[in-house]
């Protein structure tokens, strides 16, 4: 009996062996799924759909990428699923948001960290900005901070949740200005946080540059400052926080890109790392992103690994004070 089993196992190995060896050469053989840990219609979802739209072309992967949304708790639901349950076979990709998932892994209570994911490439960088309602009395960050100094803990401002880029920006602002603020996380994400600002429920808000740009164009908000090292091409007139005298770097900038779970075959990772950035560089993709007001920042796998490590160090230091 044992002999029989051994023989069967051998035969099976002989059959599957060669299949495995050249199995990845023909990758991908079927449509690929990409998980987005935010709801359909959000900035990450919207951009993910655009940057993957050319995946089916012959010069790209030759197979379409389907977007699957797993929203909840600021991205934790989706990334937790991705780290613990997703199959590492190259057919399950995910969008990442840095600093969100790194900050959440440092804060704890989730089953992922930078070690559980393998980055493929980065497509976008969306800085956080400080917005106030169009009829607000604040005209600069100095006004905001002056108000906060008079009313410690009384300056309410909205953001997309706890331990996401907006929250990091809020913490940096508190630290740099030396004031206490009332950060109100919104359960409906960036859109809900923006609504709260426009409706006057809060005095101000931190939001995505891409969404704020649109809201300003619609005449609903004023943008007072950018949480980045340099001014943004979409908003050349809006000064950075540093220009306004607050020592804030780009730790809160929302980097978006593609990753796979740890354990994905190296050949698959290499192929994706080679092809995916070229998808992002596609002219049609770039023009759609530009039209939608979404700033792009294409980075290769090696650059992203470096960026993750740098963010990890910065965020550990920033969140240690909490």
């Amino acid at each position: 009996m044992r002999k029989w089993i051994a023989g069967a196992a051998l035969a099976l190995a002989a059959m599957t062996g060669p299949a495995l060896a050249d199995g990845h050469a023909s990758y991908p053989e079927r449509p690929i799924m990409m998980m987005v840990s935010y709801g359909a219609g959000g900035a990450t979802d919207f951009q993910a759909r655009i940057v993957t739209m050319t995946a089916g072309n012959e010069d790209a992967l030759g197979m379409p990428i389907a977007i699957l949304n797993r929203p909840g708790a600021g991205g934790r639901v989706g990334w937790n699923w991705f780290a613990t349950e997703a199959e590492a076979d190259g057919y399950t990709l995910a969008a990442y948001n840095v600093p969100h998932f790194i900050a959440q892994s440092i804060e704890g209570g989730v089953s992922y960290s930078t070690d559980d994911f393998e980055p493929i490439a980065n497509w976008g960088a969306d800085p956080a900005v400080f917005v106030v309602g169009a009829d607000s009395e604040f005209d600069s960050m100095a006004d905001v901070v002056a108000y906060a100094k008079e009313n410690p803990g009384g300056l309410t401002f909205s953001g997309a949740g706890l331990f996401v880029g907006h929250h990091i920006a809020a913490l940096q602002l508190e630290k740099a200005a030396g004031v206490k603020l009332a950060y109100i996380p919104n359960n409906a994400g960036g859109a809900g946080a923006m609504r709260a600002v426009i409706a006057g429920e809060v005095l101000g808000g931190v939001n995505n540059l891409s969404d704020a740009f649109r809201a300003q164009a619609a005449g609903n908000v004023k943008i007072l400052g950018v949480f980045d090292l340099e001014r943004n091409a979409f908003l050349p007139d809006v000064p950075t926080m540093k220009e306004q005298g607050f020592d804030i770097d780009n730790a809160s900038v929302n980097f978006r890109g593609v990753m796979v779970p740890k354990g994905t075959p190296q050949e698959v990772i290499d192929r994706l790392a080679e092809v995916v950035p070229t998808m992002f560089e596609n002219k049609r993709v770039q023009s759609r992103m530009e039209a939608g007001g979404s700033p792009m920042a294409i980075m290769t796998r090696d650059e992203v690994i470096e960026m993750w490590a740098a963010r990890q160090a910065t965020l550990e230091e920033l969140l240690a004070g909490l």
Partner: protein
Amino acid sequence: MTSLPRSQHIIASGLIAAVGVTIAYISYTQEPAEAYVFPRLISSVFAVLAIWTFVKAVLGRTKVGNGISGDAMLKMAPGLVVTLVYVFWAAKALGFYTATTIAFFILVSLYDPAPHTQLKTWVKRIAITAGFMLVMYGLFAQLLNVFTPRETLF
């Protein structure tokens, strides 16, 4: 009211009350406390209402709900077993389409009143199963591109 529904009501409402009390206990003891403000509120109301229902059941004052007759339990048992095996084991282990084909065929055969002895009955059952699976495959695999677990065959 006969005694069968009454004892069933006591068991059912007892189980619900136990769940209510358990989640209330968890809500009041787990950390971080600020994440449990809302669960505390609802689990308290839950527990109170569940205990009320339980007390009413014990006193025999339950007004609504017929319970489950023995006949119904016997009749549903095979179908329920097939359903549970299908959903919790076969769908993943055998692949969606294989498991659904088998479960569908068994269920139709189990509950179809037509006599089992005629060939015509079986041809009809196979045709219905094949038709349903074709529609499912066309809708989910072809039109919507859903990649379901596939282990055996497809």
